[in-house]
């Protein structure tokens, strides 16, 4: 199960497992992020390279249009994946 929820303060929460089977079904949700955004990953249990690719594409698109993407509340094993991918040097992570 994977879900994307927008909180009242504009923060976007990613919930569950973001795997390759979810990428196509959810791509439009990420395309709908058109301005600077905070992604809350507190409830993201799992992400594979397919999900990381969508996050990277979103970051790149926002950056190129003058926006920003910040990630918060990463679980330790998710944070470690970002480090292995070299994404800890590309994403703004709190």
């Amino acid at each position, binding site marked *: 199960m994977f879900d994307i929820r927008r909180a009242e303060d504009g923060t976007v929460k990613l919930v569950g497992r973001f*795997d390759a*089977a979810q990428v196509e079904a959810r791509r439009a949700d990420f395309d709908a992020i058109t301005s600077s955004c905070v992604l809350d990953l507190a409830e993201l249990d*799992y992400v*594979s*390279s397919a999900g990381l690719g969508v996050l990277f594409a979103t*970051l790149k698109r926002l950056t190129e249009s003058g926006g920003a993407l910040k990630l918060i509340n990463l679980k330790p094993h998710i944070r470690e*994946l970002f480090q292995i*991918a*070299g994404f800890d040097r590309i994403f703004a992570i709190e």
Partner: protein
Amino acid sequence: MATERMFPKAIASLEEVFNHLDAFYAAEAIETGAAMSLSLVVEELFTNLVKYNTASRNPILVKLGRENGKVRIELVDHDVDRFDPATLPDVDVNAPMSERTPGGLGLHLVRAIVDHISFEYENRVMRIVVVKNLERGDV
């Protein structure tokens, strides 16, 4: 415990693959962190076979086993052309954002997670074997 099961060669099989893995983790009392890492390894290898071994649509065999603190995972793809994942370009994780593309991370992540990986190809059968030592405390 060792277990094996065939899955249709499609990304849509992932949910069933994960269910199969979760049953194995429960039977072997594998803790959550290691389970997430193993699931990621299987997803990356399985999706690579779906994407690149397109010569046949035969199901993919996934074999799981645990022995002496190590998990051994084998994926077997029948009647396919030779495909050597080692020929895929390795991603440069130190490159700046402007030079990176969204793809190409899967095998890099797998290599970082497992302790052993091998690819064999014989008689049109591709066999990928990975081993992860559960006593390693990292991802």
